[in-house]
């Protein structure tokens, strides 16, 4: 039985790779994609989601537009990481398909409430849509199967401030709502994603297949690699979101700890910092499973093989 997932995403280069990985994986069925602000504006992330689906000949997957601002904080986008279009140097044609009518947060509510226990949410961007869905319909907590979240930096340094990871920094208040909601949650923080680097050699392996998708991966990640080189002195690029996607069907890639995790919303220097109470000083119940250890090669092999399969099919 494949897992039914809804992807909440702000594509974004690594987001787009996560969507491709999901499409390439028979273990998953994408019921829908919801766009959110983050890497670039919601206008653009919506368009990018549609374009990626068209590129992979999967435009039957419905796309719903979500929030274009964080809940409380001012907007923060990241064109220096993902390029002005959000997809690096890739230039995909304007999508022909349109987003469906209705707000992304309502789509989450409808789907979860009409199919209790069946829907897995995969959140790859700021958590605004899911936070709004939780406040509008608190019963989704008991009816969602599980929520995979790419976000946070537990013992790792931040990638947006010294302490905070991008997704949780952009909408810390939404993260606070989601973290404390009681939904079964699996977090993929920078602690594990920064150990999985997509290298030039990996790209060259994919480029042996002549497909519009390999061309896309090459054009988008070239920008992403330049960013990592310039800002973080990393050779290659960190593909956070595909890693989160992989964990939905191949959990053995990571080792997990059950932890009490909170996010700082106090507007000091630690704003958006996710921190675990390892010694449970606060005596609170564990609120999520956190991926804290990873087998990087296992993930990268999976990713490359799945991309090779998908690219061979789409020429």
């Amino acid at each position: 039985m494949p897992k039914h997932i809804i992807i909440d995403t702000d594509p974004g280069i690594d987001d787009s790779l996560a969507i491709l990985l999901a499409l390439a994986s028979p273990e998953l069925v994408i019921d829908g994609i919801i766009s959110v602000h983050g890497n670039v504006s919601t206008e653009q992330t919506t368009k990018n989601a549609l374009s990626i689906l068209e590129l992979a000949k999967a435009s039957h997957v419905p796309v719903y537009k979500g929030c274009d601002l964080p809940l409380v904080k001012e907007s923060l986008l990241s064109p220096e990481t993902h390029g002005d279009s959000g997809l690096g140097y890739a230039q995909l044609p304007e999508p022909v398909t349109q987003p469906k009518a209705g707000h992304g947060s309502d789509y989450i509510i409808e789907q979860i409430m009409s199919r209790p226990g069946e829907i897995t949410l995969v959140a790859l961007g700021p958590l605004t849509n899911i936070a709004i869905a939780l406040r509008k319909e608190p019963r989704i907590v008991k009816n969602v199967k599980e929520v995979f979240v790419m976000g946070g930096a537990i013992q790792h340094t931040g990638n947006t401030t010294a302490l905070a990871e991008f997704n949780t920094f952009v909408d810390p208040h939404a993260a606070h709502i989601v973290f404390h909601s009681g939904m079964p949650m699996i977090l993929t923080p920078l602690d594990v994603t920064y150990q999985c680097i997509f290298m030039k050699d990996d790209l060259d392996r994919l480029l042996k297949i002549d497909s519009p998708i390999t061309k896309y991966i090459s054009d988008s990640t070239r920008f992403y690699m330049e960013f990592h080189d310039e800002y973080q002195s990393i050779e290659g690029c960190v593909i956070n979101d595909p890693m989160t996607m992989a964990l939905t069907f191949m959990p053995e890639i990571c080792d997990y700890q059950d932890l009490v995790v909170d996010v700082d919303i106090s507007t000091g220097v630690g704003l958006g910092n996710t921190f675990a109470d390892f010694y449970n000083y606060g005596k609170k119940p564990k609120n999520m499973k956190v991926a804290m250890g990873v087998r990087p090669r296992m993930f990268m092999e999976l990713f490359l093989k799945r991309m090779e399969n998908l690219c061979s099919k789409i020429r």
Partner: protein
Amino acid sequence: MPTRIILDTDPGADDALAILLMLASPEIQLEALTTVQGNVNLEKTTRNALALLEFLNASHIPVAKGCSTPLIKPPHGEQGEEVHGKTGLGQAILPEPRSKVVEPHAVDYLIERFLAEPGELTLFAIGPLTNVALAIRKEPKFAQAVKELVIMGGAVRSGGNITPLAEFNIHEDPHAAHVVFNSGIPITLIPLDVTYKCLLTAKDVERLNGIDSPIAKFVRDVTADYMEFYLKYEGFDGCALHDPLTVAAVIAPELLSIEKHYVNVDISGGVSTGKTYADFMKVSKKPANMKVALGVKGREFVDLFVERLESFCRSRL
């Protein structure tokens, strides 16, 4: 042309009095209520809204049910029952309502109504601002569609009534208030600075009860515990007409002294969380984002309130 109003509310003793005053005022056409948790929990505020409208023969006014918790903070729990009584309506006992809420969530109902007639409807918000904040975030066109928003909330120069610095509605959902204050909606704020100058006394209630009317009796029952609370905790003879005073913005603006300021709310998580502050000296160089009532002819407003209710009671005899 009466001012067409949608009221976001958490009834609540003084909310009930505001609804009464609106229905008693020909300058106002009350078109819908949306409910939110606040003074008491959402089930109770929604039940009270429906029951109150039925009691006042106004159940043609739709009620939409809203948010059951603040955006980020946990709800304050049953603390509000000390002020507003177990049901939220003091000692008043209204029959179980037969009418039901309309289908959409209050957030969607607000979006639907305001976008259907951009610039036509005025929003009054007299509870925590959770529903309004979510409407703003969910529908980017919402803020522009609201003609005006009148808020009961905040304590600008005055002390707080839930912490030493913060007023209840704002403190209950400071993050929502932050969203609303910075949304660009034209706001009029009615803070504690003015509401505490409008005290309804036992004498006023007795004057109203010179009319043998179930509505006058309701006012007595709904304010009895409320007055006791004020006497016990704040040493006042009478109860503050917080929510009803918002109505003055439409029916008697001449009673209010209004200033334009940049007003924001502290969401930093420190001792002043939920504190509303005005940039009187313009140190932040930010443009004014609202009109704030900082003075009021209190006794005149209370007299007006009683007069309006008297005519309302008489018209319903």
